């Protein structure tokens, strides 16, 4: 399940782009799940662990991926850290839910990310409540951002 702590969180990694720059592993980029995610969010194709083909920027290294995708990759592979997912746009929301489908993940949000119209299962750690829709999420999370 996806666990979210809304608002300031002292232990969360805030600058995810910088963390990714010095931490990413080659094998993360060629993981099939990550390749699909990069194609969907960044419209870019992974050619190799060090080369991604972007329709806008040309051939780019992994550090030039979008901030959202870099954060998603960290959330996927770093189960021991909490990352600031407010560097992700709403188009990353479905991927956060997918990553947390089979394993628990905790993220920190400083804004109200739109998780869409479909039902989901998210635990809001501030109040330890589980919500199943944006209608349920907004009044609770809105208190903390």
């Amino acid at each position: 399940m996806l666990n979210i702590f809304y608002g300031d969180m002292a232990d969360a990694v805030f600058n995810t782009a910088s963390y990714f720059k010095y931490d990413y592993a080659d094998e993360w980029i060629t993981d099939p799940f990550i390749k699909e995610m990069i194609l969907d969010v960044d419209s870019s194709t992974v050619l190799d662990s060090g080369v991604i083909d972007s329709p806008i920027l040309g051939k780019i290294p992994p550090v030039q991926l979008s901030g959202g995708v870099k954060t998603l990759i960290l959330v996927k592979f770093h189960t021991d850290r909490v990352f600031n997912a407010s560097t992700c746009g709403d188009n990353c929301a479905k991927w956060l839910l997918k990553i947390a489908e089979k394993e628990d993940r905790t993220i920190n949000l400083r804004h109200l990310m739109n998780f869409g119209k479909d039902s989901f299962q998210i635990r809001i750690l501030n109040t330890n409540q589980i919500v199943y829709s944006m209608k349920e999420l907004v009044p609770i999370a809105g208190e903390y951002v």
Partner: protein
Amino acid sequence: MKGRYRVVVSSRRLRYDFELKRNLTIVRGDSATGKTTLVEMIQEYISNPSGSYIVSDGSNKTGLEDITAYCPAGIPARQYTRFVPFMLTVPILLQSLQGAGLLWQALGSILLVLALVRLRYLRGR
């Protein structure tokens, strides 16, 4: 800040051309829509205008060079308040998904400064 600031920045592959009409402009949107690239291009140009491939519109003197404060994503919203002293004089371009909270915070800081100024004025009388 008075008037409008036209911002033009381009490279071989990209070109941004827009106007800043307000003191504080927040760039927000989905991931991979070019927010960070814009901020990095401006940063690159400002730090090295003649030696960078990034170019700004040469005919526009009140453009890129006048944006003296901007900030990439990944900076806590509370740190944006350091831009408050500049808000009345220069256009500020910020990249953030925390737009609403940031605006309220900035507005709160401005109101606090105005209240302090008024208090000093009243004491002076």
